[in-house]
């Protein structure tokens, strides 16, 4: 070797070359794999939304497939704010543009939770009224709605995000056209305990939500995640996962916080429900007629 390996000049030169080289290589790797990675992420989101509809056609849909058929099912993408103002309303014919931050599909729930919702909740800890008040004033929190039309029936997929035991949890809830009965649910998490909290992604937990209600007909009733085995869950409760109490608490909290916003929105926008009080579209009314149970019927009448 021609150089003195212990000299400062050599050490500095070596370090500089190494860092520039490694940095360049990493940038190249990241750039070349980037498209495949973001396609995975967006396909997974579509897969979750489609699964949350709760119809058998999209239940076991694969990730790669989800991207292709998403627009066949999801006909409208709406973004609302806490007060229920519509900020963006796109049809399935409008392409999902990555630059349109208000497009319901581009709403990054986890980011909004950690950036805007969590600080407010921490600030008003232990004071639910003040928390709600502060949340309602925030302009940064968005609520996406995905309207699915399939076989003459309309479904609404709502989204929620919150915090489990270790890290973020989020999910999608599908509502029937009565806007009260849950048709499907999908949850996911970032780092819940494997084998315990991570079970929220399993079908048996998600299926518990199906046919549960978010309203008793007159007012909003939050879905509660109860301790498993404590009592038979009623139509507003689901069994939690034993050993994963805090994940359940987190799921319950995010549902209470977000579903109420949607409930109020639908209440003040009767054009979205299949009730007889508004001029319902043909598709809506057929669904309300065919899928109506006694409880649903009573709810649709009292929702006037």
């Amino acid at each position: 070797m021609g150089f003195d390996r212990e000299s400062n000049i050599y050490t500095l030169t070596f370090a500089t070359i190494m860092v520039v080289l490694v940095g360049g290589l990493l940038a190249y790797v990241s750039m070349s794999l980037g498209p495949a990675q973001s396609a995975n992420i967006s396909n997974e989101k579509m897969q979750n939304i489609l699964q949350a509809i709760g119809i058998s056609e999209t239940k076991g849909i694969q990730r790669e497939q989800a991207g292709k058929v998403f627009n066949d099912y999801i006909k409208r993408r709406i973004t609302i704010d806490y007060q229920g103002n519509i900020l963006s309303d796109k049809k399935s014919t409008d392409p999902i543009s990555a630059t349109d931050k208000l497009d319901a599909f581009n709403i990054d729930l986890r980011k909004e939770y950690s950036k805007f919702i969590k600080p407010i909740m921490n600030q008003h800890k232990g004071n639910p009224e003040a928390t709600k008040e502060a949340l309602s004033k925030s302009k940064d929190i968005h609520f996406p709605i995905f309207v699915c039309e399939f076989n003459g029936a309309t479904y609404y997929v709502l989204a929620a995000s919150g915090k489990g035991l270790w890290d973020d949890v989020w999910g999608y809830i599908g509502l029937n056209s009565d806007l009260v009965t849950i048709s499907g649910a999908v949850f996911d998490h970032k780092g819940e305990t494997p084998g315990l909290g991570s079970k929220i992604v399993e079908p048996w937990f998600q299926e518990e939500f199906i046919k549960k209600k978010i309203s008793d007909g007159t007012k909003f009733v939050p879905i509660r995640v109860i301790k498993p085995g404590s009592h038979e869950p009623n139509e507003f409760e689901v069994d939690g996962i034993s050993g994963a109490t805090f994940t359940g608490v987190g799921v319950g909290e995010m549902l209470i916080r977000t579903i109420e916003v949607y409930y109020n929105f639908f209440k003040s926008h009767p054009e979205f429900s299949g009730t007889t009080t508004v001029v319902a579209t043909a598709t809506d009314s057929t669904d309300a007629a065919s899928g109506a149970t006694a409880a649903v019927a009573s709810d649709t009448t009292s929702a006037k």
Partner: protein
Amino acid sequence: MSETKSEPLFSKKNKELITSPLNKTNPVTIQILGICSALAVTVQMDNALVMGFAVMAVTALGNVVISAMRNLIPSRIRIIVQLVVAAFLVICVDQILKAYVYDVSKQLSVFVGLIITNCILMGRFEAFALGNKPWPSFLDGIGNGLGYSMILVIVALFKEVIGSGTITLPGIGKLSIIPESVYQFGYENNGLMLLPPSSLVIVAMIIWFQRAKNPDLIEA
């Protein structure tokens, strides 16, 4: 780097580089390195397999890179150089997993990134690659990666079968191991096995078993 005389690729010495970490110099049970991830990613068999494979790839490649540069690396910053090589390879592995095996990458989440801090890596770079030629270093990396994977798989086997009653294999999915009839008799999955502490017990048992079999491993 011309050597005096060429040695066959799989000479006895080279073969030992692969076989010895499986037993007498096992990185986990003998050197007690890489314990942290052995505790965390062993709840399901598929995670253990992918993690083992990732560590093996990073150790082997990293060993080759470090070994090829061993005459160029300034000794004062050699640890930093090793760290940069490890970090680079790990980020590549992470990016590749995210692009091609997205589901596995989601399950392994932070643990892929934590391979950087896996002591086996730095241990092998420092102890072996810096003083040996690339080929033996490669074999040493593969051997230690295998030794690590082996322990992960054994731990995952116990944890998943006793904890969930299943075996999850990559590409195949969950296989039920414990028949439904056993559950009807009142058998329950042991939730403790799903938590990290249970791995310590299993690793300790492997160490016990291994030392009972090899009396020369027992310190006085």
